[in-house]
C-alpha cells in the first residue's frame, strides 16, 4: 500500500515530461507512419489512403537515389576527416611535445563549434563567392588561377564544397571528444610501454586506439547519423542545386512536403530517414548501453 502511494507520487513527477514526449515526439512519429500511406496536401482537409504507392515511388524516385548517394558521401568524408583525423589530431595534441601549445590549438579548433550553422554557412558563401570570395582570391594570389571556379554552382564541386563546410565546423568538436577520452587513459600504461621501448606510433596503436574504442564508436555513430540527417548546409548554400547535385534526404523531404505540397510522400521519405538513423543509433544504444559509465 505504502509503495503504491509512493509510486503514485513519483508518477506525478514524471507526468509533465512524459506528456510532452507523448504529444511532441511519440504522437508525431505515429502520425508520420500513418501519413506515409496517404496522399494529401497542406490545404486539403481530406487524406486519401494510397496503400504502398508512396513506398513504391520511394524506390523508383531518381532524386532519392541521388540524395542517398550524397548522404553516403557525406558520411564517408565525415568519418575520415572527423573521426580518423580527429583521433590522430587528439593524440598529437595530447603528446608531451605539444603540451605547451595544446590549450591554444584546442581552443582554436573548438571555436567553430560555438558558431551557429547559419553563420558558418553564410561565412562560406563569402568564401566560395565566385567574384570576391576568399577561396578564389587566394588561388589567384598564389598564381593558381586555373583552379578557380564557381564552387557552389558547379555540379562536380558543389557537393564536396558543402561537405567541406561541415568538416571545417565539426572536426574540432570530435577532436575534443577524443581528447576527453585520451585524458582518461591511466598514464602508467604509457609509462610501462615507454619502459618496454615502444615508440610513439607503437604506443598510439597499442594503447591509445584500444583504450578509446568506445569513444571511437560513439563519434562514428554521431557523425554517420549526422550525415544522414544533414539539412541546414545544402538548404542554405545551394537549395539542393545545381539541378539535384547537392540534394540530400531531409532536403528532398522538405521540398516534397512544403514546396511541391505532397505531404504523404514527404512522410514516406521521413520514414526512410527514420529507419536509417534509428538503426544506426540503436546499434550504439544497445551495444554500449547507457548505464555503463554512469556511476563514475
Amino acid at each position, binding site marked *: 500500500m505504502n509503495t503504491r502511494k509512493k509510486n503514485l507520487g513519483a*508518477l506525478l*513527477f514524471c507526468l*509533465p515530461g512524459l506528456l510532452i514526449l507523448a504529444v*511532441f515526439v511519440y504522437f508525431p*512519429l505515429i502520425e508520420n507512419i500513418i501519413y506515409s500511406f496517404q496522399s494529401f496536401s497542406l490545404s486539403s482537409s481530406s487524406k486519401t489512403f494510397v496503400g504502398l504507392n508512396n513506398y513504391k515511388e520511394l524506390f523508383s524516385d531518381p532524386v532519392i537515389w541521388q540524395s542517398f548517394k550524397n548522404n553516403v558521401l557525406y558520411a564517408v568524408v565525415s568519418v575520415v576527416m572527423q573521426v580518423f583525423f580527429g583521433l590522430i589530431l587528439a593524440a598529437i595534441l595530447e603528446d608531451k611535445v605539444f603540451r605547451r601549445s595544446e590549450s591554444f590549438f584546442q581552443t582554436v579548433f573548438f571555436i567553430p563549434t560555438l558558431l551557429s550553422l547559419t553563420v558558418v554557412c553564410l561565412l562560406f558563401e563569402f568564401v566560395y563567392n565566385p*567574384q570576391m570570395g576568399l577561396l578564389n582570391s587566394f588561388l589567384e594570389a598564389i598564381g593558381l588561377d586555373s583552379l578557380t571556379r564557381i564552387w557552389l554552382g558547379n555540379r562536380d564541386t558543389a557537393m564536396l564544397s558543402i561537405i567541406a563546410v561541415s568538416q571545417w565546423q565539426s572536426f574540432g568538436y570530435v577532436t575534443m571528444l577524443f581528447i576527453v577520452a585520451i585524458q582518461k587513459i591511466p598514464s602508467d600504461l604509457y609509462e610501462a610501454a615507454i619502459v618496454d621501448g615502444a615508440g610513439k606510433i607503437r604506443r598510439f596503436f597499442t594503447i591509445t586506439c584500444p583504450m578509446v574504442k568506445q569513444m571511437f564508436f560513439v563519434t562514428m555513430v554521431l557523425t554517420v547519423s549526422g550525415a544522414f540527417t544533414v539539412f541546414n548546409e545544402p538548404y542554405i548554400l545551394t537549395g539542393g542545386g545545381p539541378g539535384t547535385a547537392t540534394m540530400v534526404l531531409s532536403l528532398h523531404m522538405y521540398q516534397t512536403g512544403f514546396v511541391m505540397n505532397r505531404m504523404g510522400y514527404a512522410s514516406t521519405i521521413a520514414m526512410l530517414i527514420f529507419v536509417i538513423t534509428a538503426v544506426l543509433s540503436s546499434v550504439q544504444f544497445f551495444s554500449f548501453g547507457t548505464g555503463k559509465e554512469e556511476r563514475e
Partner: protein
Amino acid sequence: MKKDRIFSKSISGKLIFLMLILLSVIIIYPLLWILMSSFKDYMSIYQDVWGLPEVWHFENYVRAWTRGISQYFVNSVIVTIATLIGVLFIASMLAFGITQLKGRIGYVAFLLVMVCLLLSPQVCVLPLFILLRGLGLNRTYLAMILPYIAFRLPMSVMLIRSFFVSISKEMEEAAIIDGASLWQIFTKIYVPLSKPILSTVTIMTIYYAWNEFLFATILVDSSSLRTIPVGLMVFRDGLMTEWGVVMAGMVISCIPLIIVYLCMSRNFIRGLTAGAVKG
C-alpha cells in the same frame, strides 16, 4: 624522456607543428575576415578583399541592429530562456520521478524516455507542423519552445538521472523518517546537490536553443517570431549587397555564446561533450 626531446627537434615534429599552425590559420582566418569586413562598405570589400578597412564603418553594426537583428535577438533570448526553464524543471522532475518509481514501472518510464534518443527531429517535423497548426500555435513562441523542450528532454533526463542515482540515500532516508514529502526531498536534497549536472544541462540547452534551425524555419509561420539563425537568412536576402551590414549581423549573433564560452569554458566543453561521453 630523452627520446621525446629528440623527437621535438626532429623534422617530423616541426612538420607536425607547422601543420597545426596551418590548420589554425584555416580556422581563424575566415573568422577574422568576417570581423574585419563587417566594418567595411560594399565597395571596399569588393575591391580589396584582403585589406584592412580604410574607413571603419561602425555604423554597420547600428544598421544591422536596427534593420532587424534586434527583433531576432530578442526572439532568440525569449525562446532560449523559456526552453531552458522548461528543460531544467521538467527534466529534473522526470529524472527524479524515475528514480523514485519502484518496480517495473520505473524501468518502463525510463525506457520510454530513452527510446526518444533514437529519433532524429527530421522524422517528426512534418507531423509537428500539422499538429502545431491544428493547435493554433504556429504563430506563437510555443511552436519552437515546446518541440525544443521535448527533443532536449531525453538527453537531459539521462544525464540528470545518472547523477541522481549516485546521490547517497542516507539523507533521503533521514528526511523520510522526519516525514518529508517527495516534493521536499526533491527541492531540498536532490536539486541543491545536483548543481554540476544542472549546469551541464543548462549549457547544452542554451547552445541548442540558440542555434536550432530546422524547427525554427519550418514550424514557425510568422516573420515577427524569427530567431537569429532563421532571421539571418532573411536578413541576407533583404540586404543583397550590403555585405558589411550582413557580416555585422553575423558577428552580433555569435556574441552571446562566445561570452558564455569565455565565462565558463571548462563547463562549456563538459556540457557539449557530456552527451557523447556518457551516451
